[in-house]
């Protein structure tokens, strides 16, 4: 008898390694319940009879499509509207007033990385819609980015449950920016049209996204392994235009490595990219990202584990 959790501990460890190799994210030691519940749901959605059947197929075949879905499912974040309201205030009161004179008559591009089910993206859109009279004559483009997942599908739909809209969203914002449809609440069309969502992640090639004036990357950095943090921050650095801003979560900061940012005085989690081009210090111990190589390595490991399992059970 193994208690409430049914997943073989060997598979559990293998899933943690897969997530680290594919996404650079360390799942903590207390994630057994999360892994079990998230993957049970995924296995039902994918048409497997049981969680074990899905995991066995993953480990026996090293199927890339399934591996990506498993990792995406494990990394889905439970997000609320206006989690840490002060960060949204900083966009409106600190960052936008600094960028506005430079971009008046043009466009300000904002990206939210790890947007999950989209609440952060819509909060940015709502906050800037309310402040539009303060910042006239500038177009705003907001992009939400995350792994392909059911959470991202929900973000694109802009549809939230009765419980979700009551966690963090003031009632007046609910009335102003959502329509009630049956038991759910759906973001109004003019806000939904002002944002878009892209499926990608920070360890992949981000060139197609273009450059942004503001990058919002909150409450995710500590989950990455140390080498992955360097790759992530290097990727973010290339995404931000000179004099653009990086907004991290409260109490999050950049490491000692030079990514070309300066911290803002009295705004501990806001960083501005320097105007001049900065040579980013390369760490020789950290390999450059190669998704294909990383994935092939993970796939070989999964295949080997499957072979080992079969040998052991023979």
């Amino acid at each position, binding site marked *: 008898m193994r208690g409430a959790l049914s997943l073989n501990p060997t598979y559990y460890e293998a899933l943690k390694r897969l997530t680290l190799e594919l996404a650079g994210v360390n799942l903590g030691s207390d994630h057994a319940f999360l892994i079990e519940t998230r993957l049970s749901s995924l296995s039902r959605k994918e048409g497997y009879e049981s969680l074990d059947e899905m995991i066995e197929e993953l480990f026996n075949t090293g199927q890339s499509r399934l591996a990506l879905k498993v990792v995406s499912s494990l990394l889905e974040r439970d997000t609320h509207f206006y989690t840490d309201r002060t960060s949204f205030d900083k966009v409106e009161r600190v960052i936008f007033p600094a960028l506005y004179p430079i971009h008046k008559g043009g466009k300000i591009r904002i990206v939210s990385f790890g947007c999950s089910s989209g609440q952060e993206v819509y909060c940015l859109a709502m906050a800037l819609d309310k402040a539009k009279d303060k910042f006239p004559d500038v177009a705003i483009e907001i992009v939400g980015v995350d792994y392909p997942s059911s959470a991202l599908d929900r973000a694109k739909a802009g549809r939230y449950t009765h*419980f979700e809209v009551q966690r963090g969203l003031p009632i007046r914002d609910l009335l102003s920016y959502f329509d009630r449809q049956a038991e759910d609440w759906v973001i109004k069309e003019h806000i939904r049209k002002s944002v878009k969502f892209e499926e990608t992640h920070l360890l992949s090639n981000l060139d197609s996204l273009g450059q942004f004036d503001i990058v919002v990357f909150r409450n995710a950095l500590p989950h990455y392994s140390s080498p992955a943090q360097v790759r992530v921050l290097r990727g973010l650095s290339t995404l931000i235009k000179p004099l653009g801003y990086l907004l991290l979560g409260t109490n999050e900061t950049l490491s000692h490595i030079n990514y070309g940012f300066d911290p803002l005085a009295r705004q501990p989690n806001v960083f501005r990219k320097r105007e001049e081009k900065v040579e980013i210090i390369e760490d020789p111990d950290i390999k450059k990202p190669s998704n294909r190589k990383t994935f092939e390595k993970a796939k070989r490991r999964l295949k080997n584990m499957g072979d080992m399992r079969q040998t052991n059970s023979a």
Partner: protein
Amino acid sequence: MTAKTCLVVDDSRMIRRVASRILKDLKFDTKEAENGQDAIERCRLEMPDAILLDWNMPVMDGLDFLKELRKEPTGDKPVVVFCTAERDVLKITQALDAGADEYVMKPFDSDIIESKFFQAGLI
């Protein structure tokens, strides 16, 4: 520092009990009333800092109570959070127009109560 006070107004004893427990966890001193008339009498004796208010109740409903409350000499002091099964946009608007500060749609949980009380500036 003295704890803030909250009057929980609902005709369901179960709801009053659940809401009071959540609010005590949020460090509120709670009192209970089972309808609007009972609530207005309690407010005249001692005005609370916050009121968690059901809509549909016998004797005096939540909306009539709120209108009466705001006419009282210190009736603008309490932060009023409606907590009701009414989810219609017109009903929500009606509650806000009558002077409600926030609005909880039942069913609720502790996260929702905490979030709404935070938005209303109570915590």
